[in-house]
């Protein structure tokens, strides 16, 4: 069998294993949290009988191991349980929220990833000259400012002063794509500014690292132009580290956008999670945790696979 098939199968198996480990951590983590859902639902004045009844109803009197497997069995069948606080099916309410989060993350990625790589290439081309310094300075500045700050600044200037886009990013299913994009334009800008620096700097570093290689000198001595050298000889050998950092940032776009969602009142997963954490709604927290873990593991798996598939030694064995 082609060695690459084995390698890929190994990585995928490892990813699945990691996901199970993450599910255990999430379950144990939420189980040892202080506080009691029954108490928080019924309030301080609840009678002991009422509390015991509610616990039994919620399945909280079972041993932890049984509870874990019941939960896991449900998750594997697509049943994330019901929210304790409002009794709704979690999978259902999470579905549209997840869709919204992915929608925002997708458009932020569409803008940020090509821009970051392009700026990284540009910084290499003009290394240590003013374009490189300007790119570095600007991206470092935007990553250093807290994102809510950037959010409010952009709302003030872009939305209120110039009146270009909506300052509130509430979207719903009845809106057209154009309306939706208009609504999320400013959050996309904020997210882009936040993730740009990391990706751009890694691209720059990865390509500069490759530019030290002897085969770059060979290319220079062929009389090739700098941009062609970067594009044809340096970039293909720098893909693996670049994809790695891109995936980390994509994961951040899905998982780490809580603040931005709150600032723009965007109906995504982050807000949903924060709401339910404050209400001690454990099943919702678990479900969100598991989805975040799956996103992280999945995207990093993709990064691993890309670095395997772009390695010529693995792709074309002797």
């Amino acid at each position, binding site marked *: 069998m082609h060695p690459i098939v084995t390698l890929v199968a190994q990585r995928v198996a490892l990813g699945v294993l990691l996901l199970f480990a993450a599910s255990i951590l999430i379950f144990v983590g939420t189980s040892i949290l202080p506080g009691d859902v029954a108490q928080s639902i019924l309030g301080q004045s609840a009678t002991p009988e009422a509390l015991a009844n509610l616990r039994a109803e919620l399945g909280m009197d079972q041993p932890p191991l049984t509870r874990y497997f019941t939960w896991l069995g449900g998750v594997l069948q697509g049943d994330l349980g019901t929210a304790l606080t409002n009794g709704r099916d979690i999978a259902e309410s999470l579905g549209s929220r997840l869709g919204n989060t992915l929608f925002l993350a997708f458009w932020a990625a569409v803008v940020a990833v090509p821009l970051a790589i392009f700026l990284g290439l540009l910084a290499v081309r003009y290394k240590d000259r003013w374009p490189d310094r300007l790119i570095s300075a600007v991206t470092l500045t935007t990553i250093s400012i807290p994102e809510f700050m950037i959010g409010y600044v952009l709302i003030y200037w872009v939305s209120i002063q110039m009146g270009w886009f909506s300052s509130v990013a509430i979207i719903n299913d009845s809106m057209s794509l154009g309306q939706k994009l208009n609504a999320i334009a400013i959050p996309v800008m904020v997210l882009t500014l936040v993730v740009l620096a990391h990706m751009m700097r890694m691209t720059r570093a990865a390509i500069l690292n490759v530019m030290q290689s002897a085969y770059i000198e060979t290319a220079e001595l062929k009389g*090739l132009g700098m941009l062609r050298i970067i594009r044809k000889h340096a970039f293909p050998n720098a893909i693996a580290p670049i994809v790695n950092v891109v995936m980390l940032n994509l994961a951040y776009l899905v998982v780490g956008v809580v603040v931005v969602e709150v600032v723009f009142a965007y109906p995504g997963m982050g807000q949903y999670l924060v709401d339910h954490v404050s209400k001690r709604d454990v099943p919702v927290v678990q479900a969100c945790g598991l989805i975040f873990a799956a996103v992280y593991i999945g995207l990093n798996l993709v990064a691993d696979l890309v670095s395997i598939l772009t390695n010529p030694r693995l792709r074309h064995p002797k």
Partner: protein
Amino acid sequence: MTDPLLKIRGLKIGATIYPPGEKAREIEIVHGVDFDLAPGKVLGLIGESGAGKSTIGLASMAYGRGGVEITDGTVEVNGRDILKAPFRDVRRLRGGEVTYVSQSAAASFNPAKQIMEQVTEAAIFQNKFTKAQAEARAVDLFRKLGLPEPETIGNRYPHQVSGGQLQRCMTALALCPEPDLVVFDEPTTALDVTTQIDVLAAIKEAIRDTGVAALYITHDLAVVAQVSDHIMVLQQGAMVEYGTTDQIINDPQEDYTRALVSVRSIRHEEKQPTNTPVLRVENITARYSGLSFDVLKNINVELHPGQTLAVVGESGSGKSTLARVITGLLPPSAGRITFDGRTLTPDLATRPVEDLRELQMIYQMADTAMNPRQTVGTIIGRPLEFYFGLRGAEKQKRIQELLDEIELGDGFIDRYPAELSGGQKQRVCIARALAAKPKLIICDEVTSALDPLVADGILKLLLDLQKIEDVAYLFITHDLATVRAIADSIAVMYQGSVVRYGPKSQVLAPPFDDYTDLLLSSVPEMKLGWLEEVLRHRKMESAGH
């Protein structure tokens, strides 16, 4: 007389260096060099590392590596000063009129691209040929250079062909755009001798067939004598001597040239074996985990006290693996190692400290074998503390003694490795090994990274120290000249087996087995026409069989 293709006048080249702990400063590394090269001729540039030969070679493409800059002089290619030409013209020159073959083809090929694409890239980019023409020409060159499957080898990736083949591909890359001049920068230095001779012959034939002119840069006078019409000897950025190849080899005028011609002048009397060997390797078989074949197959050798056993062979023959087995880094799958009358445990971790002390190692790369943040005194003092518990003034005294033994006198004790030359670094490594008062030192290619004259000094030192300290050397090398210089007995290794073993006088005397014959006859000799002679001889032999 025809106009010269390459005309260099008063070439001065400077570089910015960053000495540790000091401010960066400018130094001059080439101090005004002049020469002409006629079309279709080959000029050999020879000298030790730091002589500026690569720098001069690259200057003919108006290129400076790293912080290197051409500060003065003119470089005319086809009558045009390329140092004053606009950058656009320089780019047309590179890869079009002048091309370059580097020492390490393995590093100079892009690992992510197929060979054909890289070989034809310059020819297509410079509009010399269309893609189809360039590819046809590349296949033709592959065939001329004796590469296997010339039609399809271009579809492979660099890691899918051997080092010698890749070096030929690099030559094809340089010849593909039909340049007027090729700069060969040590193109065979990284190859085994048996591979070197084939690549050398291929390069020579390609130069002759295409009528291209060449600058052939090397530190090996015997190699350059085979391919060049003229030779320029360089030392520390200045010309020492220039003449026809015949004159330089047979009638050198300058002392430095004479030293280069007569290098390896060490004469060593072979010692007789004693009754009790210090090291006995019996039936050793070993493999690396994950490999499906044995890297060492049933090895049997002996080494006597105060003597030198040279283990010689090509890369991949298993010589360094043998050292790993003896030092316990790789426990063998079968066999026994007896050291000074006692059996060594297979694994390093279970060996008593005494065994570790009496068996020391010196490595090829002195650079990486020393902690760059420790002074010479700390480096040499470490075994003194560890094995003998020496402290304070006593330790300092012993360090100074050792430094005297390796001829590095006062003032070196507080220096850092970065402040030493290559030869001095290797001397410090020798002192560190000696500090343990070992009975056996394994020397793994200790002179391979050094210039011939410096290597000679190291070998002389090792022989002198052997007399004083009565230490035995297991000397691993691919260089037969080194073997001749210092060995008492020799083991020739090939594909994991010892194919020939015995006292030096027997191993180096006919009748030879096939492999030893091939190995010995491949070592370049310092005379004109040696290459043709060997190839003719080989052709006759293969015809006779």
